[in-house]
């Protein structure tokens, strides 16, 4: 770049005047609501995400009630849901609406917004050694677009025709034609508006994350000294920046089909509800699927990578050992990021995709097993023969590894286009993605919350409740999703309200009751976590030392309650990588400590 020194220094001084000043008085509104402090914004994302998780989880309880007890009525359901459960039984339309909203909420609003929104905001400046994000203003806007999108999505639950009900993937024609189903009317318009706002939020956030990681690291913090959390969050942001715009272009064409009568996705349609043949010709629903899954698959890794990064960090801290194969970890994150863009069509094996093209996508899909296996190997070797401290964060990180292995292995089944002919759209798929990206990403998120809660609020969460939460959720998750593999192998399709007309699936009647019961218990355990979270904010055990976990990274050099600007005085300089645990006879050496004269340089 062709600018000289002088002007850059000028602008940076301006920059620091803005963020270094944490003495001046702030009103409640600028401090906690329209805050530009990355730590407050992180908490806003976290708490909004938690509210969404409760709503989305409650939906799963409702439809599990239907799936477990299809022959019974629950009059109290009508009291809560009104027309959605006439006579105490969930109607088919509202069942579809529930599963659609459950998917949309959990995938986007909880595990994207709530997960990377929280931890990218919280950890990137703290672990890179920056006073705030590159653009705190954009960061604030990112949250408020997320909030706005959340309100619009929430409002769609309360309209008369109900929220969108065509599946979280919003395939046309159900998403393109208002007459196709009740949920395709206003519900779909609100869905697409909310999603557009969500995409804007993700982009604003992602631009900031990448820009901060690459530009605002403290002195001495080279890229290879970054903790793996930051690498993971960085690649997550890159994935979002490159894939969300493609989803948006898919949505724009969808909007034209919906409201201008074009035929990008529609062709030769006859609507039974209105007894009408449509003039649309030549459109291709597959085109939408390509555009959707070009985001949809990277989205899986947008959800998973932050969990991987946090698990790596937490495993290393609590095993008191350096992470095994740091560069291999970074390399495998990079490989996953690249491959994420090259495998989208494995979601479309049975849509009439050219079989040759399918075989290419099978190969690329199975290649993901390589970086995934490297990561698993490195996690296991990190904890191998280590002196593990079983903190709640550590337990959840270990649980994450367990679930990632279990869920990842079934991915090898589904990545085969031939096996997919049998397994597609069955409970096998449900089981696979719930374990590998749903529950395991949640475990990464829980690990992160338990581990960084002392930094967020200056207090610890209650350990007893955390242990109950962990064991209950881990056992419960396996009890819920493991049996679904058998149902799926037997051919039981997903998205059905009632299987009692299929005699071949009657054998699963009791199993479904069992799954539903466990799902309800696990949901209640999450409420225990929520209680623990809010209780501990005000009543938890206070943090008395700067570095309660004896970790090496920079966030633990800040005051217990860091102000806006994070460090009082100068930002510390970094002299070593983030994983000097049990080195040269010492338990840990902080990143800020210079390399000693007799020390081997890492």
């Amino acid at each position, binding site marked *: *770049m062709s*600018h000289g*020194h002088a*002007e*850059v*220094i*000028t*602008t*940076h*001084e*301006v920059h*620091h005047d803005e963020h*270094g000043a944490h003495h001046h008085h702030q009103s409640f509104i600028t401090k906690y609501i329209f805050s530009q402090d990355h730590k407050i914004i992180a908490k806003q994302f976290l708490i909004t995400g938690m509210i969404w998780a409760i709503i989305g989880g409650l939906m799963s309880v409702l439809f599990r009630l239907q799936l477990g007890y299809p022959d019974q009525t629950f009059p109290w359901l009508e009291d809560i849901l009104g027309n959605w459960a006439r006579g105490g039984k969930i109607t088919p339309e509202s069942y579809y609406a529930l599963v659609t909203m459950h998917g949309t909420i959990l995938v986007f609003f909880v595990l994207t917004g709530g997960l990377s929104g929280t931890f990218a905001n919280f950890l990137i400046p703290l672990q890179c050694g920056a006073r705030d994000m*590159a*653009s705190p203003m*954009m960061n604030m806007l990112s949250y408020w677009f997320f909030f706005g999108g959340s309100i619009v999505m929430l409002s769609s639950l309360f309209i008369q025709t109900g929220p969108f009900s065509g599946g979280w993937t919003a395939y046309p024609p159900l998403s393109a034609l208002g007459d196709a189903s009740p949920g395709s009317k206003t519900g779909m318009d609100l869905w697409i508006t909310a999603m557009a706002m969500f995409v804007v939020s993700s*982009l604003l956030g*992602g*631009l*900031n994350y*990448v*820009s*901060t990681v*690459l*530009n*605002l690291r*403290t*002195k*001495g913090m080279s890229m290879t000294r970054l903790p793996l959390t930051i690498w993971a969050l960085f690649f997550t942001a890159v994935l979002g*920046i*490159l*894939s*969300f*715009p*493609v989803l*948006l*272009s*898919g949505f*724009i*064409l969808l909007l*034209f089909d919906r409201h*201008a*009568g*074009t*035929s*990008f996705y529609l062709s030769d349609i006859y609507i039974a509800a209105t007894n009408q043949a449509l*003039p*649309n*010709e*030549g*459109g*291709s629903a597959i*085109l939408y699927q*390509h*555009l959707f899954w*070009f985001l949809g698959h990277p989205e899986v890794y947008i959800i998973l990578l932050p969990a991987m990064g946090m698990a790596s960090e937490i495993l290393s801290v609590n095993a008191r050992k350096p992470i095994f194969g740091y560069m291999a970890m970074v390399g495998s994150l990079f490989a996953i990021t690249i491959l994420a863009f090259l495998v989208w069509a494995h979601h479309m094996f049975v849509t009439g995709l050219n079989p040759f093209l399918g075989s290419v996508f099978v190969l690329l899909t199975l290649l993901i097993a390589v970086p995934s296996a490297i990561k698993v190997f490195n996690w296991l070797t990190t904890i191998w023969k280590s002196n593990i401290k079983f903190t709640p964060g550590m337990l959840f990180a270990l649980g994450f590894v367990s679930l990632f292995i279990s869920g990842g292995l079934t991915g090898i089944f589904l990545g085969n286009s031939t096996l997919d002919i049998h397994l597609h759209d069955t409970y096998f798929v449900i089981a696979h993605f719930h374990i590998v990206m749903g529950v395991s990403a949640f475990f990464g998120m829980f690990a992160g919350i338990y581990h960084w809660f002392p930094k967020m609020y200056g207090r610890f969460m209650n350990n007893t409740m955390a242990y109950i939460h962990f064991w209950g959720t881990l056992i419960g998750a396996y009890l819920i999703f493991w049996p679904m593999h058998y149902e799926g192998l037997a051919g039981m399709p997903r998205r059905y309200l009632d299987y009692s007309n299929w005699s071949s699936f009657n054998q699963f009647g009791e199993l479904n009751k069992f799954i539903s019961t466990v799902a309800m218990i696990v949901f209640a355990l999450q409420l225990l976590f929520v209680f623990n979270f809010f209780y501990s904010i005000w009543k938890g055990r206070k943090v008395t030392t700067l570095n309660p976990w004896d970790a090496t990274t920079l966030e633990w050099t800040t005051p217990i309650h860091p102000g806006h600007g994070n460090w009082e005085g*100068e*930002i510390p*300089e970094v002299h070593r990588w983030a994983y000097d645990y049990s080195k040269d006879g010492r338990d840990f050496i902080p990143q800020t400590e210079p390399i000693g004269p007799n020390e081997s340089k890492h």
Partner: protein
Amino acid sequence: MTEAVSTQRKKIHPHKFTLWIGIGSIIMMFAGLTSAYIVKGSMAGFTTVQMPQIFYYSTAVMLISSFTMQWALKSFKERGMQQYRRLLTVTMILGLAFICMQLIGFSQLWEAGTKMKGSTGAGQFLYVIFGLHAVHVLGGIIALIVMFIKAFSARIRNYNSIPVEVMSTYWHFVDLLWVYLFVFFLFKL
């Protein structure tokens, strides 16, 4: 604080960097749309249209506006504020002229029978893709208006060239994006 600054000295300014990533993001959006065109264009029954003449002229207008923007940046850096304001105004007017010409082009296509309803071919893609590009130009014009107000405000004296550099980079980008889209359609129609 000086030490922290010294490490960041050789790096690109964060705002400029953020713009470049944002540009990457916009590129992905249009890559998605033009690849959708390629996929759909290879299907049976895809109809094409005649490119309206006016889009050639709007291309010229866009290219000239890029030139005036660059000149404005140069004047700003040389503290030629009078000339900077004049060139900023010219760029803005050219941008608005571009949008008007795009709208005229759309209406010509519409008159020639390319409607939204019914079957979809190149014409409908052209509306969507060129329209979306025009929205991005409009965003640039709004940013120009903000800079215009700042440049004419007597209260604020600012010689920081970063915002002007960010502005000109974005403007050149929408210009290049237009050239890409125009050439893409020239080959495909």
